[in-house]
């Protein structure tokens, strides 16, 4: 148990929340869409900083989230339910994504499980998750990022931070045909418009 004052920063369901894409216009669905673009709004995003050389820290993460802390660069791991994930961001930073509303519970549990020096900050309001799927999803990514997203270089269970269009995004591959993009709230509108434009030639189905 660490002596850190923590407060529940989540407003709760009685306060109306607006996703970063609440205002966008959804184009009409193409007949046979090559790309399916979907937003998964209101997930719980948390930035974790800590020392992975400390076994107690790794054990606490395992205990709270049920998955081992990924220590390999660009690793992305999901728990058995597929709802909770941890992604390696840098040698001392990870991104935790949990179902919306669970942030405070995870934060509290982690502070109870581990008393060493670490930080966990809820950043749910600052970013949003988009999924890209369909037969032409990879073509859209090829057009949008400088990173090599070819399957030989980007297996399932990898997640990286790179340039996306002219913004920054976390690009990850949770399963064979689904790509996830995590973009900043302030860039969400730009990235969305870019994606719709880049997907137009293949036909796009959008759900935000």
């Amino acid at each position: 148990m660490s002596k850190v004052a923590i407060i529940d920063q989540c407003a709760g369901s009685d306060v109306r929340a607006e996703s970063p894409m609440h205002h966008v216009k959804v184009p009409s669905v193409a007949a046979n869409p090559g790309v399916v673009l979907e937003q998964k709004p209101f997930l719980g995003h948390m930035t974790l900083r800590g020392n992975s050389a400390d076994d107690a820290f790794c054990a606490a993460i395992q205990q709270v989230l049920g998955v081992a802390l990924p220590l390999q660069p660009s690793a992305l791991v999901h728990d058995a339910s597929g709802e909770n994930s941890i992604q390696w961001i840098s040698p001392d930073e990870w991104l935790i994504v949990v179902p919306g509303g669970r942030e405070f519970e995870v934060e509290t549990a982690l502070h109870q499980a581990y008393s060493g020096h670490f930080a966990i900050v809820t950043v749910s309001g600052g970013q949003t998750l988009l999924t890209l799927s369909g037969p032409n999803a990879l073509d859209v990514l090829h057009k949008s990022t400088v990173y090599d997203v070819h399957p030989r270089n980007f297996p399932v269970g990898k997640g990286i931070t790179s340039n996306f269009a002219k913004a920054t995004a976390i690009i990850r591959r949770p399963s064979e045909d689904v790509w996830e993009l995590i973009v900043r709230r302030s860039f969400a509108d730009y990235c969305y418009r870019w994606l719709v434009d880049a997907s137009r030639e293949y036909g796009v189905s959008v759900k935000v």
Partner: protein
Amino acid sequence: MLHIYCPYCGEHREESEFRPKGQAHIIRPKDPVNTSDEEWGDYLFFRENPRGIHHEMWVHAVGCRKFFNVTRDTVSYEILEVYKMGEQPTVTAATQQKGGQK
């Protein structure tokens, strides 16, 4: 475009993910109060501008956001080695001359 190896991410990335941060291995004077103005000025403002081997810092700004060191040839732009913060370069102007290259 340079293709730069990030020692923390463990792979080559595009140059657009990185930002150059100038000369590496600049040591802050241990006792600023008793440091002469000239020494302090050298520390703050004066930088090497070599032709050939240059040790410099880069930051993986769009990525892991870590600083690391690069040894680069300022003539050919070739990156000769990349090493983490706190480590010393193995390729220097002296070793390059001994090898008979450049």
